[in-house]
Structure formats: C-alpha cells, structure tokens
C-alpha cells in the first residue's frame, strides 16, 4: 500500500487553522473603515499592515498547507534530491 494512505492526515490542524483564518478575515472585512483609517495613515503606522501580513501569512499559510495534504496532494516521494 502506498505510504500516503497510511499516514495520518492533519484534519484537526487544518480545521483549527481554517477557523482562525476565517475569523481573521471576517474581522478584517467587518472592520474595513477602521482598518482603512488606521492602516493607511503612513509613518510609523506602516508597521501595522506589515505585521498583519505576517500574521495572516502564518495562519492562512498553515491552513492552506494542511488543506492540500488533507486533499491528498503532497510532494513527490521518490524524487531525486536536487543538488
């Protein structure tokens, strides 16, 4: 049997990160006026959009990574390593 079918899929992790990611996006879209007003001020406020981009990339990146694993789409297993 192929190795992939025996490996446990990260369904729980995917669901958790998915919920957190959705909550972050819901918060962003439901507070657009505040976000536009604060994050677009410039100057030292520049740290806000940059920090937010890092936070979303971590949470949503984890979710999307687990998503493809759960869907059974993973990297090739016996590919010769590139040197």
């Amino acid at each position, binding site marked *: 049997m192929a190795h992939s079918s025996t490996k446990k899929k990260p369904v729980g992790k995917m669901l958790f990160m998915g919920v957190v990611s959705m909550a972050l996006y819901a918060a962003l879209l439901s507070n657009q006026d505040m976000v536009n007003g604060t994050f677009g001020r410039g100057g030292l406020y*520049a740290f806000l959009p940059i920090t937010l981009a890092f936070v979303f990339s971590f949470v949503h990146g984890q979710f999307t990574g687990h998503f493809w694993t759960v869907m059974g789409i993973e990297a090739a297993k016996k590919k010769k390593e590139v040197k």
Partner: protein
Amino acid sequence: MHDVIGTAANFINLDTITVLYLFGVGFVGGLVSGFIGSGGAFVLTPGMMSLGVPGLVAVASNMCHKFPKALVGAIKRAKYGQVDVKLGIVLGISAEAGVLYGAHIQENIKKAFGDAGSNLYVSVAFVVILALVGGFVLRDAYKTYKSGNVLEEEKAGKLARWVQSINIPGTMVYFKSLNARISVLFTVPLGFATGMLAATIAVGGFIGVPSMIYVMGAPSLMASATELVIAFVMGLGGSFKYAMSGLVDIRLALIILAGSLFGIQLGAIGTTYVKPYMIKVVMGLIMVIVLFSRGLMIPVYLSQLGLIQKLGDGTAGLLKTTSFGIMIAALLLGAIIVLRAMMQGRREEKLRLSEGALEHGKI
C-alpha cells in the same frame, strides 16, 4: 502627510464579486509563482486598477501581498531542498537597491513625460527585455526537449562556467546552489537589475531566475525557488516604503493573499513532480505572451504622447482590452501547464509506486 490621508480615502469599496475576483487572480498568480518563483503581479496590478484602485495603491498592495506569499513559498520549497537562502539574501539586498533606483527613474520619467511617457517606458522595457530573455529561455527549453536529455541533471552553461572561473580576491562567496564560489561583483549587478525590473514591470523574476540559471549556473529548480527569497526581501522593503506613505490597501493585499497561498503551495508541490526544464517552458512562454500583450499598448501610448497619429477611442479601447486579455491568457496558460505537468507527474509516481509494490510482492 496630506496626501497620505487623501490616499486612505481613495481605498475602494469591496463587494463580493470584487473579493472573489481578487481571490481567483491571487490563486492563479500564486500557482505560477510557486512554480517559477515569480509572476502574477503583471496581471494583479492592472487587474486592481481596472477595479478603480489608483495605480500607486495597486502597486503597493500587490507588493504587500507578494512578500508574505514569497515567504510561505520559500519555506515550502526549502523543505524540498530547493532554496539557496544565502544567494537569495545576497541578491535580495542588491535587488532592494535596484527597486529604489528603478522607482526613482520612474518618478523622473513621469515628471518629464507624464503618465503616457511612464507607461510607454514600462511597455518598451517589457517588450525589449521579455523578447531577449524570454526568447532565450524558451529556445533553451526547446533545445533541451529536442535533445531528449530532459531527465539529465542540468549543467552550468558556458557563460556560467566562465563567471565561476573568475577569481577576484576578497569578493568570492560560496553558494550551495552553484556548488561554486563566485564574485559578488557579479551578483550585485544582477540583483540590482532584478530590482530595477521589479520596480518597472513588477516581475523581477523575469531577470532574476534566468540570471541565476544562465549567468551563475544554478539549476532551474533552485533558481526559481531562490527567487522567492529575493521576492520576500524586495517585497518586504518595498511594502514598508509604500506603507510609510499610507499607500498599502491591506484589505486588497490580504484578500489576494488568501487565494495566492492556496496557489503557491500547489505550485511548490508541483515542482517536485516535473522535469526541471518545465520551469523554463512555463517561464519562457509567459514572458513571450506577455511581450505581445504589452507590445499592443505601445501605439496607444505613442498616440497619447502625440508621436504618431492619434488613435480613435474605439481602437485604443480595443487594444487595451486585448492587451489585458492576453495577459490573463498568459497567466492561465502557465497555470494549466503547471497543473497538467503535476498531474502527469503524480500519475507516473503512482505507477512507479504500484510497480514497486508488485516487485516487492514477488520477492
């Protein structure tokens, strides 16, 4: 600070269709970026502008989605052993300088010749660079395909071997992707050119990846993966610069990011299934198709500058629509090739694994 407040007021209203559109373009752009290390930006920026986003806000928001996307892609591809972090950082820092200089040139051209002059400069840069580099990349991919050596490990070409043979004391650095030491006096101008191109046409990778392959001698897979590190370094610095002026619409950046993180993971996985020359095929094809798209716009800008006979509104509109359509087609074609190559690779792997299991059963 005054125009900063004005800019915040210029952020567009988002409806469901807009959100879905940005998510979709983000996904396709991410898929291509995960595979060839760059791409997507040339559609995203005009795509946002077509929604009514001011040009600078579109450029800034695109950049602010690019660096976290590149970070996720680089981490993913580093797991496959494809990233040369040192080379990415060295090139990324000089690329950052190139971005600043490129933006400065853009500003001066805009001041001297207005929007049409600036657009003409961008389009001519697109056509000339993409014709030279894209044509070369595609020709090389075709030669590899015709030679039947698609499975062979890539070797550094003549130019790269020469670059690697030059020893300038005090400037030599070892890079694992090249398995050689090269002088930073070569990497600095190449990184700078990558940054300048990123500031001009938004896709620095069209110079960065081919220069890593052909000038430095990196394998295609490592070059495209390392480009993601360059994109992260460049994108982070550029985004901060734009955010200081209040130009980043973080909502747009994060919605595009939502789609592109699905895409970039898939594109990165795809690289583990395909033959290395496929990176060159996808990159070369996209570059050559985009060249035609931008080429169509040159008469429009020449007409706006009064350098040729004025085009009718209908003709100019048709050229603009066709140009944008061709760009979307280029990105979609790239995505289709990536998905097809990946599906084929997965089928071959399944077959190999099942044959292996059968052999094992016999023993």
